[in-house]
């Protein structure tokens, strides 16, 4: 099977995004379906931005907040602040903030998200929020609304569904700024595991090089 240059493609996508935004930016990555590769895109984009010298924070939402049908009940305390305890990444890797994991609330208001993003902008050039699915997930939608731009991950080659139109409609109705859609190759999604525990970095492994996890992913795809 021919090798696919996912790193190169991510670089091209990252360059276009850099050109589309100005200054410190918060970008939310979401998708209509969980399998569309939003986590892969968020992690890969954060990795790529780090590789070109940007300070990047990758915000990941915990398992309890990512499933639309099993989304936890929103906290009655709408003004609850988003925690800012960030796990620092290794050299060349983005810092990581986990939301919704054990010990962390699962639901936040728009205002809380906006306040948190304001603080993120002070420190990071780019904050990449892995909002997974926003449909049926109020926190994800709040994060998307508060972000400077929204990227929609879409698995290339899958059939179009009504949920895709619903996502576009919801984002438009919520006033989110959608930068565009990034199509993700199915093989890249299958080879990538977004991490099932907070202690794990977005991309498996702990190589010093920022591009190494993605390169490893590419090699897995090629060998598969």
């Amino acid at each position, binding site marked *: 099977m021919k090798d696919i240059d996912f790193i190169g493609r991510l670089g091209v*996508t990252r360059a276009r995004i850099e050109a589309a935004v100005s200054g410190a930016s918060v970008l939310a990555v979401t998708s209509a379906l969980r399998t569309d590769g939003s986590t892969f895109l968020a992690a890969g984009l954060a990795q790529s931005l780090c590789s070109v010298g940007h300070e990047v924070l990758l915000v990941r939402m915990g398992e309890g907040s990512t499933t639309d049908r099993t989304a936890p009940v929103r906290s009655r305390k709408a003004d609850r602040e988003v925690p800012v305890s960030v796990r620092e990444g290794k050299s060349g890797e983005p810092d990581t903030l986990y939301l919704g994991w054990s010990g962390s609330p699962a639901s936040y208001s728009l205002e809380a998200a906006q306040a948190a993003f304001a603080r993120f902008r002070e420190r990071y050039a780019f904050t990449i929020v892995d909002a997974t699915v926003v449909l049926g997930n109020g926190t994800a939608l709040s994060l998307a609304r508060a972000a400077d731009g929204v990227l929609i991950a879409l698995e290339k080659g899958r059939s179009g569904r009504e949920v895709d*139109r619903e996502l576009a409609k919801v984002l438009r109705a919520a006033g989110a700024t959608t930068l565009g859609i990034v199509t993700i190759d199915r093989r890249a999604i299958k080879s990538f595991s977004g991490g099932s525990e907070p202690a794990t970095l977005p991309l498996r492994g702990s190589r010093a090089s920022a591009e190494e996890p993605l390169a490893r992913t590419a090699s897995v795809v090629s060998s598969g």
Partner: protein
Amino acid sequence: MKLRSFGAVLWQRRFLIAGVIVVALLCVPILTKMIAPTYEATSEVSYVGSGSAGNTISLSNAILPTSDLPQLVLSYAVIADAKQALNLHDSVDELRLTTSVKASPHSNVVPIVVRMKDRSNAVLFANALADSTVHHYKEIAARQYDDVISHIRAQLDGERNEIRTIDASLQQAVQLDSFVGSSDALDTISKHLDDLEVQRGTAYATYVADRAAASAQASGTSDTDRAGLASAIHEQVLTNDLTYQAVKTAQSKDVAELAATRAGYTDSFPGLPGLVAKVKIETKAADQAAQQAISEHPGNSATYAQVVLNEHNAAALASGDKARVTALDHDISIARSRLSDLPHVGVRADLLRLQRDSASAAYTALDTRYQQTLADRAQAAALGAAFVLDHATMAAPRIPELAIATVLAALILLLAIGVAYAAEALDPRIRTAADVEDLYGMPRIGSV
């Protein structure tokens, strides 16, 4: 750009295309076996007409123009004849659809092409069509003479009837008077009359002589002759009369016995008187028998019969002469009557004779023309312009196998491409930027 898009679709569906091609190639042998090939056989009919260059045989007027030959080949009669010859079950219309004929104005060779599923039938039917076409063509060639022949024949019949009518009239006239049948009736009748008069003179003279002879035979001559002949006649009569001879024999016997008795005995012999009396009686009976024989049976005498016969012959000869004279008188009378009637009867006979001569001349002329037309018809039928130049000997598949293979390959390729495009059109999956933008109404900014 479109070419790239075309190529992209083909590449995207390459496995489907390959699958379709493989399946199609697997099906090709089955299809070729299921599809019965059509075989084509060609026979050729050549046409010798006014337009034939270099032919030694050329008719001044073509029976049919070459361009009409296809219509003749495809005519119901020609196809029906060929069908009947081969005992085919197809209808004439169906057979017509299997046949094609193309006549070229620059060629006298007309190919008859037959396409059939059955190879042998294609050959046979092509040949049967060629034969039937030639046959019908000759019929048509001769048919133009048939009308003339029929017309001449009708005229001949008319002339023949007229001649018969004239002959009947002439015969009737001849029956009325045999001499009117002759052109020199006057001379003939005159000569005939002269002959009759000469014959009458001779006959009359003969009659007079014979009548005189008969009279002499019956009267003067007979008295003397009969007196001289009486004793001979009586003797012949008595000799030929059996009764007289029987009586005479008995009487002679008894006379002899009496003489013998007298010689041996005296007159006192007691048996003598009885014997004398018996002899007397027998003598008397013999005399009576002699008289009776002479008076009743004179014909027993040959002399008497000859005399009577001579008399009758003389009388008959005279009567015959008289009858002949009378008949000649009658003929002379008729001849004279005809001679007197000859002026008006002869004119009518002459007129009939002239009419008959005229009708006979017309009949002869028509008959000559009839024979000439028959000869022309025979010539037209023999040289009747069309003949089978070449019979079909084999039937080849209408479409060469290479062409079939090429067409099948092209069809398979087109099928594969069509299937690929159909699959592409029916595929709901998101593949291109356009698909993404159509679905979300937003631009695609990247692809990973």
